[in-house]
């Protein structure tokens, strides 16, 4: 990394704030990049300082590309922040295709006046998440918008991954008879974030589950024959319900879940009761849904459970023929209901 020493003074990461100059492309922009982003994300491709990064694609592989915009309030929440979330989210999107994530780009839209201390905290969290995942941030961009035109920080990340030739994992592959697995407890991220909303602050021990799942995916794919894992998806925004509805529609199938088998932390259940929300629609940031062939279901479940990120994995339902593509659920109560798409934003009920 080129070390510049000709800035009048280093960035003040205690009291300083983002100003319009930081996004103007001049010396102030360069200083922000050098003293914050480049130091935190340091890797050979980024060190080149070019407009883009050159990456090798090994023979016999295809590229997978995924992109994600991150807008979250509050920016810091129990168990994480927008920084690590922006790494995990995109790593997971690439991993859900069955690919090995290899590189990320990051684009920041900063609001004028945003404290540099908070930005540093976010960037360092991002860097730590990328290091831990082994996926470098190799290129990026920074823009600053006027105060009142942003919400502190927006981060967009794009991920590239390598997919072995012949591997086909996708939302359209679920078949009747397949088994639906989930890698752990549901709704943790949603409740952790809600508990910190200014208007809704309540005491909760629930922390976000935000995590990079590519090693979990790798373990699963290694444990079963090629083709036995039909679909992988992380149930983020919209939760389990929306994700399963997406898959049901893509694959032209229905699903039947068993409510009694859904792994849910008691604290999350209680928070949902309090707020009148349905855990099935709450976001998860460190969980995956795997739809697998019935003959490998036990092996797949055992493999997920053997991994630290899948310790509470569960078999929650089956794929079935259904021309209406309904996701349904047998309730713990002995009844049956549709598990519908999310309509709009989940809103608390009045009574």
């Amino acid at each position, binding site marked *: 990394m080129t070390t510049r020493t000709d800035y009048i003074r280093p960035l003040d990461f205690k009291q300083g704030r983002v100003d319009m100059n930081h996004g103007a492309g001049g010396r102030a922009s360069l200083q922000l990049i050098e003293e914050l982003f480049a130091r935190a994300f340091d890797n050979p491709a980024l060190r080149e300082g070019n407009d883009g990064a050159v990456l090798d694609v090994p023979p016999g592989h295809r590229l997978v590309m995924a992109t994600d915009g991150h807008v979250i309030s509050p920016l810091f929440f129990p168990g994480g922040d927008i920084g690590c979330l922006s790494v995990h989210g995109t790593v997971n999107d690439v991993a859900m295709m069955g690919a090995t994530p290899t590189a990320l780009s990051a684009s920041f839209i900063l609001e004028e006046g945003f404290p540099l201390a908070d930005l540093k905290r976010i960037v360092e969290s991002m860097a730590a998440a990328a290091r831990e995942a082994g996926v470098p941030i190799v290129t990026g961009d920074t823009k600053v918008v006027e105060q009142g035109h942003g919400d502190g920080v927006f981060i967009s990340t794009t991920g590239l991954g390598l997919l072995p030739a012949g591997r086909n994992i996708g939302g359209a592959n679920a078949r009747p008879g397949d088994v639906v697995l989930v890698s752990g407890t549901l709704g943790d991220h949603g409740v952790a974030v809600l508990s910190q909303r200014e208007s809704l602050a309540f005491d909760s021990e629930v922390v976000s589950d935000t995590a990079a799942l590519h090693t979990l995916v790798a373990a699963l794919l290694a444990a079963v024959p090629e083709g036995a894992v039909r679909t992988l998806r992380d149930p983020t925004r919209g939760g389990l319900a929306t994700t399963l509805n997406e898959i049901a529609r893509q694959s032209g199938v229905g699903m039947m879940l068993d409510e009694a088998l859904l792994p849910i932390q008691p604290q999350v259940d209680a928070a949902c009761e309090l707020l009148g929300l349905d855990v099935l629609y709450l976001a998860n940031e460190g969980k995956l849904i795997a739809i697998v062939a019935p003959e490998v279901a036990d092996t797949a479940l055992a493999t997920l459970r053997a991994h630290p990120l899948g310790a509470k994995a569960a078999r929650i339902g089956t794929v079935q023929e259904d021309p209406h593509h309904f996701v349904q659920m047998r*309730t713990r109560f002995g009844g049956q209901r549709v598990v519908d798409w999310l309509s709009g934003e989940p809103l608390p009920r009045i009574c």
Partner: protein
Amino acid sequence: MKYVDEFRDGALAQQIGARIRAEAQPGRDYRFMEFCGGHTHAIARYGVAELLPPHLRMIHGPGCPVCVLPIGRIDQAIGLALERGAIVCTYGDTMRVPASPWRAGPLPNARDPLGGPDAQRQVRGLQDSGLSMMKAKARGADIRMVYSAADALKIARQHPEREVVFFAIGFETTTPPTALVVKQAAQEGLKNFSVLCCHVLTPGAIAHILDAPEAQQWGDAVALDGFVGPAHVSIVIGSAPYEAFARDYRKPVVIAGFEPLDVMQAILMLVRQVNEGRAEVENEFTRAVSREGNHAAQAVVAEVLELRESFEWRGLGEVAYSALRLKPAYAAFDAEKRFGLNYRPVADHKQCECGAILRGVKRPTDCKLFGTVCTPDNPMGSCMVSSEGACAAHYAYGRFRDMAPPRSLPVAAPRGGSGSGPAEPDPRQSPELGTCGACSAPNQIPT
């Protein structure tokens, strides 16, 4: 979850279901109205209908506070935000209720201190149709979702330079907090806080349904054999106010909690009353409801609010003595007086059957708009908005019953209920659903 899971015990539900089926006499129909939206939600979400016999029909009543909110009142709230520049605070599920097409008309007076140039610019673009508070917010109205009346008061304190209006809706449950914040605002001498009071009362609506012309005109179409009485409302007002209905209309009322086992137990108690020819008020929800209710809550409401002679309910029209307004002593905090609002009733969409559905005359699937142009994503009528609405509950949780069952599916057969699918053997008659002696006495819910 302690104190919750006990009320969602599937095995006990099967037992109570078996007892209901055993005691519901063949050749006789049972039609019970669950007045409260919370009960509608519980019945749909937990699939309670699956456990009931085909000749026992649950009719969704007008007890969803969002569903009964007339368009004209939402228009008033939107108008305050868009035309008068006020911060309007509202409970979350009110945000999506469809309002009327925004009326073209004279722009707000430029000299009006509440309608500045920004408000005028916003209004100019609003000649289109189909506003809601959420859509109005996207057009620049300062509408904020709050979780309590106290949050609205907090916003008023934070913005002394702005008019802050709390759009107060709901039944007796949400009324005491509204009365309390008005009292607090008066004590603090807040000059910028007011309440658009749309609180409604349960007894007036029940009487209205029982007195409805259809009840006499169409006979069996809306005949009701009893009510599952409200849960949270009854915590506030007690069980005594329902005694007149039981006595005068000969309708049994069983007050029930919102947990699915509560609802099932209440249904069993209603079946028994009907079988025995009794019409009494019984209280399944004894762990929270007393005969007299919450005196402190009643006192603060009585101090701040008074009865309106009449109030429009969506679907029910004008209902006498069924709503509240602020007393003259608190007129300074009454948004209707403060802003000189005149109420303008607005008709529902011509094909919308919300009115008939709220009165129990029609089922959601009887409405031509249901599931076609009217869905939770694009609600035309109020019953499709809140998850407690009859249409939204059926759409979100129960519409599989309207479809032909998929092949190779071991699912429950379509019900008579609101479905129209082909008949199949009723799985609820399966041998494992035997009767249970433990459920023969009322109130077997573990407490």
